């Protein structure tokens, strides 16, 4: 008896599901198409290209050669490690600089001043990345504004070069990434009830442990999503590292660009691109695990 009734119940459900699914499917169609045509398809193509080896003019064979090359040639591997480490450092610095700014915007500023400050974080993004980077070059170069000012003020005797090294690269990367850290942080801090902070003080907490035990745990999803975005953007940045980075400044995307464009070597370019995708995903995954966040949290 009971088995019969359960059966009919599931049948009833099953009859409904396809209708819902069709509706959902139609609604999702543009998104699915977009995902498929612009994200999945290119990557499948990328994967296929990366798995072939060029034998001669228009002659290819299936091979893992491009991947093997990445791991056996220290140059590529070092470049990747350097890029990843620099990106992680840039992400951490962006977080350290961006957090107080975001806290100030979300919790201290009110009304007009608040939007003004927010705008100020946005303004650098009204000009293109190229112009922004050139702006930094004008400031930091040997014959640039800061060097001239220091000489004028008598702090240094001769011109100082602040460009073309890892420090200037770092400044450029952090500057470029700031907004992408501040936006998620402000929105997550906005949702933090002020009375939680007050309760923390009321119960005897000081600024430091309220930050550590209440504000940061609450902001964790925002911190994670900000860090993921900044890390990925920095890792994939091309312009800033090439223009500010100087003669020793290797960057992995530059390597990919070189493979594709100057070497006409699409096969290894694709392999590098794919490896970048996998390795950066792995780093993000480890980061999420360490901070005990899930990817779903970060998009809440």
């Amino acid at each position: 008896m009971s088995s019969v009734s359960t059966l009919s119940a599931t049948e009833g459900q099953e009859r409904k599901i396809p209708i819902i699914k069709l509706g959902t499917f139609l609604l999702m169609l543009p998104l699915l198409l977009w995902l498929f045509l612009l994200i999945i398809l290119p990557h499948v193509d990328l994967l296929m290209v990366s798995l072939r080896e060029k034998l001669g003019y228009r002659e290819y064979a299936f091979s893992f050669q491009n991947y093997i090359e990445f791991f056996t040639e220290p140059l590529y591997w070092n470049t990747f490690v350097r890029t990843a480490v620099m990106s992680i450092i840039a992400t951490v610095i962006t977080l350290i600089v961006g957090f107080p700014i975001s806290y100030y915007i979300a919790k201290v500023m009110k009304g007009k001043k608040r939007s003004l400050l927010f705008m100020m974080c946005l303004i650098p993004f009204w000009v293109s990345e190229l112009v922004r980077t050139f702006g930094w070059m004008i400031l930091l170069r040997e014959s640039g504004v800061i060097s001239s000012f220091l000489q004028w003020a008598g702090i240094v005797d001769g011109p100082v070069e602040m460009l073309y090294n890892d420090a200037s690269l770092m400044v450029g990367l952090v500057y470029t990434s700031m907004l992408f850290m501040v936006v998620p942080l402000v929105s997550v801090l906005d949702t933090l009830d002020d009375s939680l902070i007050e309760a923390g003080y009321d119960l005897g907490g000081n600024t430091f442990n309220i930050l550590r035990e209440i504000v940061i745990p609450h902001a964790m999803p925002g911190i994670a999503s900000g860090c993921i975005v900044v890390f990925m953007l920095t890792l994939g940045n091309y312009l800033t590292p090439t223009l500010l980075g100087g003669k020793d400044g290797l960057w992995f995307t530059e390597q990919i660009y070189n493979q594709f464009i100057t070497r006409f070597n699409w096969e290894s370019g694709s392999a590098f691109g794919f490896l970048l995708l996998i390795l950066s995903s792995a780093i993000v995954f480890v980061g999420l695990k360490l901070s005990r966040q899930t990817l779903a949290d970060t998009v809440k």
Partner: protein
Amino acid sequence: MKSAKTTLSLKKAILGVTAIVGLAFSAQAQAEELRLLTWGGYAPDAVVEQFKAETGIDVKVTKSNNEEMIAKLRATGGGGFDLAQPSQDRISGAQIENRIYKPMDLSKIDSSQFISSMLEATKANTTVDGEVYGVPHVWGTSGLVLDTKKAGDVKDYADLCNEAHAGKVSYRLKRPTLIGFAFSMGMDPFEAYGDTAKYQEIMDKVEAKLISCKANVKTYWEGGDALLNLVRSGEVVAAMAWDTGGWKLNGDNPDVTFVAPASGALGWIDTFALPRKTENEEAAYKWINFVMRPEIAAQITAEAGNFTASKGADAFAEDKLKAQFQASFPEQDLNNIKWYPTVPAGLETIEGKVLDRVKAASSN
């Protein structure tokens, strides 16, 4: 001016490779439009307007450089543009490899407007399977741009490594640098083009030289404008660069000029070539014949700073430019120009590895 802008973002490059879907949309070109893939300065607005007035054809200009031109055409199988202007040495390799060009119908070109020696040389260099793929347009050289007061001792590329100029020299990390250094070190890379092993050997020596020279370099320049800035501000006193850059700076500061290196300047010729899927071949030929007219060619020379393969255009060129040219190229230097021969496939891989290793090497 031959200022390469390597500002193409990675994203664009990857999308160009893969999102072939998008190209379906760009295929619906209007009849009277010429989509020109060229270098900065090769299609001045004034010339484009005159062409439109005369023929009614709109020219849509996309500025690029050799590598990007090939990458773009390769991504589309030779589509998206009606006329391209790669350098003559980069045509046949790309054609054999990727079939991105279409043979030229020489009967549609008014060869009387060309300096015949240059036309013949270009035709010979761009011939694949008996078909000609390119005719010459603009030519120039790369060599040394120097502040003659401060770096008068630099006579050749190798002198850029003199310790006296530590931190004040610059060059690109690109293949012309490798070739130039090879010549200045007494080797002939062009001769070794056909012999991979020998070429590798030459490149290994160049690599060692460039790595030991790295401490001297202020930065490897990327865009032409960036280099001009470096030299103009005095941050760099000696660089490997294009002739036009030197002449431009010479206008501001008479101490700075272009000097042909002792081992010979490297000569390049940029051509006209038809992408395989060109949609307006007629307009392409019209444009070629139009810009090769001496008075039009002179306008392009004035804009780009380089001379063209147009016969008789010299008569219309500015005196100042002619004077600068003559100062930089005395008779024996002119004869000593090393013209790039066609690049055989495979060399770029060798060069690429060398460039990677130089970039990765520690500078001290």
